[in-house]
């Protein structure tokens, strides 16, 4: 049950505060950007900002930056699976119904 007291994941308080401020700023940014009509760029822009926010939460709030290769390996694997899951489903559906 115990956690090692190595203290390897002690992160200064100001980092948590800075990350939270950045997350709120990115939320404002994503709302503002979505209000501008950029045509086909709106969706990738929103996804990029969201991924940036998710990375901040993962690295600093979830302490991923202190984790070893095991947990990084699982993270990489699930994200690696996620892309073909969405991409293949989408191309298959478009092939069947749209063309």
């Amino acid at each position, binding site marked *: 049950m*115990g956690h090692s007291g190595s203290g390897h994941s002690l992160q200064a308080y100001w980092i948590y505060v800075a990350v939270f401020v950045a997350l709120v700023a990115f939320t404002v940014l994503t*709302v503002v950007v979505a209000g501008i009509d950029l045509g086909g760029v709106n969706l990738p822009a929103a996804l990029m900002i969201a991924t940036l926010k998710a990375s901040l939460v993962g690295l600093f709030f979830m302490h991923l930056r202190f984790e070893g290769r095991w947990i990084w390996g699982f993270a990489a694997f699930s994200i690696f699976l996620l892309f073909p899951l969405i991409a293949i489903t989408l191309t298959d559906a478009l092939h069947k119904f749209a063309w």
Partner: protein
Amino acid sequence: MEHVAGVEEFPRFETSKMGVWIFLFSEILLFGGLFATYAVFRALHFQEFNHDHQELNVTLGAINTVVLLWSSFHVALAVAAIQRGKDRALKLHLAMTILLGCVFLVNKGIEYSAKFSHGIYPWTSNFFSIYFVITGLHGLHVLCGVVALSIILYMAFQGRFSSTNYTRVEGTALYWHLVDIIWIYVFPLLYLVA
């Protein structure tokens, strides 16, 4: 055997944390399936998505985004506090996280009832079916998180955690952060760029 020796070197607390991470990855793929459905619906019914998503209240969605980020901030501080052995700060931050989780659920309830009163239901359109499924399942995760965090808070009041024993606090916090990350994608996809 070489790999067995590797297992022995692997500390026990690390394995329980890894268990939580494996669960989180299964959650990513669960929501991944729903996002795939979203992508297909959006591609096939683009006009309908463009029209229907304007029914959603962007202000309320943005407020809920900040509320959930704020709650994530507090649960991160709860872990930081107990890592430093600060028991009182742990309880305070856990309580704030639970409170903000409840605020999120109340806002979601207001949104749902507004939709119902406008005659919008999951079977109204493709957009609203995926909207209700994703936000509903996400809301259920928030509800489970609030319950789990309340149990952790109760255990904290029993003095069950210390700077060398906080695996359960950490695991629950990781789950809460994931629920936050999912919402980070849900908000722009449903409220902003549909």
